């Protein structure tokens, strides 16, 4: 199963500069674990521990086939072969 993951500039230090990498997993959570295996350190930039459970970081947006995963189950969002995942840090500030 191959899932294309688009990597934002700021996280390309983990992918040797690659703009996109391939990953594997039936859910977003499994995909992130798979990415961590090949690109150690990337998981920490995507998820955080929130009162005992792991969740996406507030200012990291992840999209599966153009849908914001927050509306389709978050880390439990399901993935299929050929899906495209895009990671984008929020553009935000005070």
């Amino acid at each position: 199963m191959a899932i294309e993951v688009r990597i934002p500039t700021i996280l390309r230090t983990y992918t040797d500069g690659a703009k996109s990498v391939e990953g594997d997993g039936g859910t977003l959570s499994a995909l992130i674990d798979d990415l961590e295996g090949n690109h150690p350190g990337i998981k920490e930039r995507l998820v955080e521990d929130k009162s005992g459970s792991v969740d996406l970081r507030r200012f990291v947006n992840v999209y599966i086939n153009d849908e914001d995963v927050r509306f389709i189950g978050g880390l439990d969002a399901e993935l299929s072969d050929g899906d495209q995942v895009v990671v984008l840090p929020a553009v935000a500030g005070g």
Partner: protein
Amino acid sequence: MLTIPQDIYDAVVAHARRDHPDEACGVVAGPEGSDRPERFIPMVNAAGSPTFYEFDSTELLALYKDMDARDEEPVVVYHSHTATEAYPSRTDIGLASEPNAHYVLVSTREHGNSEGPVEFRSYRIIDGVVTEEDVTITPTAATETVQSQKRSTP
């Protein structure tokens, strides 16, 4: 140093004035690697707040896909401060995630929605380190204006 055409500078300032007292935000895109801010893209502040800004997540994706298709990158990421100086806040520094971008801060604290001088300052924000840089305003690129007028003629 940030080098920015006069018309884009004016558009950023006008956006900040228009949205005052809420923070205004947006991007100026340019060809990847060129460091030339050419395409002004005002964004909606989804937070609609005088103390915070955030691009809407759906619009953020559309913006990046569009820039990708045009081989562009965000050369400038701008937002306004409406009650404080044009200097990155702690939140701005913590959330800055475009190491190649010029972060432009405009402060409307002096004149709000009205005409009058505004603070317009530019920074690099990399790994939590803020470095202010000079801003050079260049005359509006005449040829491009002519071209875009031609394109819009029916």
